């Protein structure tokens, strides 16, 4: 079972950039583009990722709701969650961190390389 990054992001253009970068770095990636789908996945999958990269504004369940589900689902609590969002208000950052997010990254402030690098840190070396 390959360790992988789980990306929860609904913007297909940004998704693709992330995917291309992961492919270049030979990192396995799974993408979920809808909040509700993410919640079902969390509740039903046996193959957990090494790290979750989570957008906040999603269709269906929001990133905050997903954070809540993550920290109350057995086996998911120890998996680091990096928020990758366009929101930068104090209360959004505070809220995400209080719900268990490990890092908070603002999409337009980071290179695509750094975004993938920060996530891949949590992938165990082969």
């Amino acid at each position, binding site marked *: 079972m390959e360790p992988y990054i789980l990306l929860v992001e609904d913007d297909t253009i*940004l998704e693709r950039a992330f995917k*291309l970068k992961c492919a270049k770095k030979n990192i396995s990636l799974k993408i979920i583009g809808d909040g509700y789908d993410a919640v079902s996945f969390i509740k039903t999958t046996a193959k957990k990722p090494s790290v979750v990269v989570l957008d906040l504004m999603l269709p269906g369940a929001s990133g905050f709701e997903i954070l809540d589900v993550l920290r109350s689902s057995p086996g998911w609590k120890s998996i680091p969650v990096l928020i990758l969002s366009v929101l930068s*208000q104090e209360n959004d950052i505070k809220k995400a961190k209080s719900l268990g997010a490990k890092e908070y990254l603002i*999409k*337009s402030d980071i*290179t*695509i*390389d750094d975004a993938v690098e920060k996530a891949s840190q949590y992938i165990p070396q082969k």
Partner: protein
Amino acid sequence: MKKTESKKHGIQVSYEQLEAEHEQLKAIMAAVGEGLVVLNKKRQILYMNKTAGSLLAIDPRRAIGKHYSDIVSLHRETGDVVEIEKPIHKVLETGDTLAADLKDDMYYVLSSGKRFPVSFTAAPLRIHDKISGAVIVFRDMTAMKKFDEAKTNFISIASHQIRTPVTAIRWYTELLLDAQKTAAPTKEQSEFSKEIYSSVLRLVDMLNTLLYLTKAETGQLVIKPQAINLSAFVRDITKELKTALESKTLSIGIGQSAAKISITIDPIILRQVISNLLINAINYSDEGGIIEISFAQNKDTVTVAIRDQGVGIPRNQQSKIFGRFFRASNASIKAPGGTGLGLFLVKYLVELWGGKIWFESPASWNKNGKVWKKGTAFFFTIPRRGK
């Protein structure tokens, strides 16, 4: 007989006329879209129209005779009760007309606890030139208030939303620049990609400055000082700017003394200041060359200097450089599209932590015994906290 009949008829007509006028007046007051309440000198309700009744959750007929303050109280946003007596008292005693609107942040609070933002005018009721009561006209401002808040947040919302396509342009340009390392692009293609990248970084910077300034101006900036190792901090920021530096073949030198300097400051604010100054240095530098960050300290202050070898600031414009929306005349040639808010924000922030900011242009450079003047050097201070 006819005279009496015609007199009776005259009275009848007058009576009918009066009744018709009365009915018309009642209909007008009922149709008025705002709440209308008439009080006597004892502040008892003489009349309340239908809108007032529905806003105050009371049957207008039942309200007659009651004291106005028994039905509703006036509060400020902060929750302090403004004795409703006070404005009405003023109106009754002095004959002044009083008004409160959206910006006064007043609320009507009903006995049920329900409350709504309100705007009102209270005027004296004059009959035969004597004040015999007060007329209050009021409006539920809930929708208006929401709209006002939305307007205030507009720049913030728009700037946040704009980040998504800006991120797309940024990331794909990075992928393009990456691909060009191995794909052997034409000189033109390579230049085009670099121009796009430098513009998108300016966009990112502009958005962040706008958002930051909105926060600062609406008093939402929360300052959280932390202990910082200056060297590691500055190194971090320069790492983020790696791609921008490479695109202009600039190198960055960080003074050695930074390694020992530790200060207590809000890292987000410091980052904003240093980033802004570095991005300016990059934008106004020509291809090749150095940007230097150096430090000096004494027991009270740490001074940071950011020096570039770029185009400098024209002498006749130097006094205006920290002004809001000001851009030097050579700025548009070098870095078109700036907002002119960057240095204004930087000065605001430096002064927020009690520091000072100034610059020298042309800046003095001293390397290997050679001394020359070029570019600009920005200096700012960080006061040390007492232990």
